[in-house]
C-alpha cells in the first residue's frame, strides 16, 4: 500500500472520529461529578460576587427601610409585592446618619443622590446616583419600570452602571433592554414580544448574558409561543430555553399550553409534554433529564434529575439555581 493510499484510508477514519463527537449519556458517577463541578462553580461565583464592594454597597442600600430607592426589600406583606413608588417624591440628596442608622434627606435635588460609607470598610465612601426612574402601569400588574439610569461610585471610582429601558404596548410589556456594568462583571438582558391583541397568538423572545472579566458565566436564549387573552394579558403555550452555565447546558422544551394544571396526573402530563436536558459541554455528555415527580412519601412534587441508569436525585440537592429557574412563575 502506498503512502497516498494509506492517507486516503486513515483520513476519513480520523475525520469521523473527531467530527462525530455526538452527545452521549454519562454514567451516574460521571453525571453526579459533573453536577458537583457545576454546583461548585456557581457557589464560588456567588460567594466571590457577594464579597465585591459594589455588591456590598447595593445590598446595604436595598436593605435599609429608610432608603429612598425602589425595589428595596419590603418586610410588609403584600401579595403583589408592589408598593407604589414615586421617584418625584423621593428626589433629593441623602446621607447615611450613623447615629440614627438611617438615611437622612439633606436637600432637594433633580435626582436621588445617596452618600454612605462602604459596609465593612468605613474609610471608603460610596455615592449612588439614581438619575432617572419611570414606571408605567400595565393592565395585569401594578407597574413596570420603563426607564432606570443609575451609577455607583466608590471612592470616586465608577463601580456600577445600570441602564434599563422598556416599552409598554397595549398595556403589556413589549420590549426590555437592560445593561448592568460592574467593575468586573457585566449582565445584559433583552426581551421582545411579537403580536398584539388583534391576533390570537404571538411570541416572546429574549436573551441574557452574564460574564466576568475572565469568562462567560451564563448565556441564555428563550423563545416562547404565547396566546393572547384580550384585553388583559397573555399566557405561555410553548417554552424553548437554551442556557449555558459555565461548562454545562440546559435545553428546555415545554409544551406548556397542553398541560392541565388541575389534572390529577399533572406530573405525568408535565413530563410527557416536556423535554428538559442537562449536558456537560466539556465531554459532550448528557448528565440527565429533569422530570417532575413526588418526593418520597409525600404528596408534594419536586424536580428530579433522572440519570442514564434510571435512578433519580432531587434537583435542589444538586443545583440550587436550576430549581429556582424551573419554579419561576412567569407572571
Amino acid at each position: 500500500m502506498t503512502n497516498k493510499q494509506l492517507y486516503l484510508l486513515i483520513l476519513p477514519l480520523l475525520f469521523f472520529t473527531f467530527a462525530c463527537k455526538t452527545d452521549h449519556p454519562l454514567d451516574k458517577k460521571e453525571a453526579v461529578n459533573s453536577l458537583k463541578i457545576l454546583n461548585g462553580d456557581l457557589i464560588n461565583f456567588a460567594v466571590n460576587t457577594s464579597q465585591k464592594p459594589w455588591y456590598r454597597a447595593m445590598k446595604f442600600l436595598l436593605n435599609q427601610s429608610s432608603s429612598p430607592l425602589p425595589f428595596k426589600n419590603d418586610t410588609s406583606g403584600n401579595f403583589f409585592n408592589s408598593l407604589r413608588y414615586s421617584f418625584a417624591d423621593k428626589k433629593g440628596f441623602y446621607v447615611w446618619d450613623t447615629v440614627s442608622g438611617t438615611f437622612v434627606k439633606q436637600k432637594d435635588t433633580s435626582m436621588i443622590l445617596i452618600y454612605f460609607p462602604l459596609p465593612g470598610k468605613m474609610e471608603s465612601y460610596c455615592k449612588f446616583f439614581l438619575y432617572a426612574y419611570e414606571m408605567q402601569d400595565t393592565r395585569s400588574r401594578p407597574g413596570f419600570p420603563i426607564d432606570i439610569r443609575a451609577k455607583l461610585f466608590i471612592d470616586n471610582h465608577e463601580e456600577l452602571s445600570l441602564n434599563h429601558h422598556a416599552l409598554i404596548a397595549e398595556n403589556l410589556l413589549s420590549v426590555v433592554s437592560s445593561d448592568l456594568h460592574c467593575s468586573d462583571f457585566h449582565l445584559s438582558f433583552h426581551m421582545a414580544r411579537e403580536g398584539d391583541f388583534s391576533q390570537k397568538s404571538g411570541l416572546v423572545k429574549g436573551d441574557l448574558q452574564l460574564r466576568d472579566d475572565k469568562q462567560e458565566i451564563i448565556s441564555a436564549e428563550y423563545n416562547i409561543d404565547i396566546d393572547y387573552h384580550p384585553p388583559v394579558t397573555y399566557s405561555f403555550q410553548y417554552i424553548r430555553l437554551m442556557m449555558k452555565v459555565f461548562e454545562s447546558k440546559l435545553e428546555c422544551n415545554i409544551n406548556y399550553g397542553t398541560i392541565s394544571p388541575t389534572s390529577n396526573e399533572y406530573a405525568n402530563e408535565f413530563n410527557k409534554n416536556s423535554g428538559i436536558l442537562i449536558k456537560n459541554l466539556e465531554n459532550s455528555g448528557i448528565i440527565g433529564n429533569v422530570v417532575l415527580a413526588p418526593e418520597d412519601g409525600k404528596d408534594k412534587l419536586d424536580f428530579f434529575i433522572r440519570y442514564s441508569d434510571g435512578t433519580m436525585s432531587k434537583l435542589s440537592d444538586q443545583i440550587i439555581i436550576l430549581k429556582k429557574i424551573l419554579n419561576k412563575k412567569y407572571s
Partner: protein
Amino acid sequence: MKKFFILMLLIAAIIGTSCKKKSDDTSTAPTVSLLATVGTTWSSGTNSLTVSQVSGSDVIVTCTYGGNSIAVSGSMTTAGFADYFYSSGDKTKPYTLVNFSDPVGTQYKFNIGSSQVVRTLLSSSTTDDFYVSALGMYIKTMDVKEDVPQGLTVNGKVTKTKTIYWYLNHKFGVVYARVIYTDGTETDIPLTSTNAGAGSK
C-alpha cells in the same frame, strides 16, 4: 387591610345573585350571574373593584388599591366561580374557588411547575350565622382556605402570602377575607360597601 384587597374583590365580582345549588335544581343549566354587569362595584375602605367588561360568563374586573389599578379576569356561573389569575388569563385553565354543590372537604388544586396552590372547602353554613355590616344582615357563608405554595413568584418576586381564608356567599360573593403572611402577620379584609346583590338574599 388593602394589601390583599385585589383578589378578594375580584372573587366578589364574579358571584351571581341567581346562584342556585345544583342539588336544588337539577333541571336548570348554569347561567351567568346578574352581578356580571358592567359597573357592579365592591369597596373596602378607599379601595374598589369594578366589573369593567363582560363576555358571557367571563368578566374583567378593574381593581384599584393603594393607588395601583390592574385588571384581572375570571368567570362565574350559577354553579360556582373560578378565576384565571394563576393561568395568566388562559380561559382553558380556570381555577375553581368553589362549586356550590361540592361537599365540605373538597380540594381544588392548581399546579405551577413543582408548586401547587390548594383551595379547600372548610365549611358551609346551614344557617345565617355570619354578619356583614355592609349588608346589614346575617348571611350563610362557604369558607375556603387557600394555601399558597412557599416560593411562588408573583409579579417578579416571591410572594409573602402564606394562606388566604375566603368567606363566600352564593349571592354576594366574597364578604370577608383573611390573609396570613409568611412572617406570621395577618390582614383582615371586610366588605364595607357594594351595589352587588341588592335585595333579598
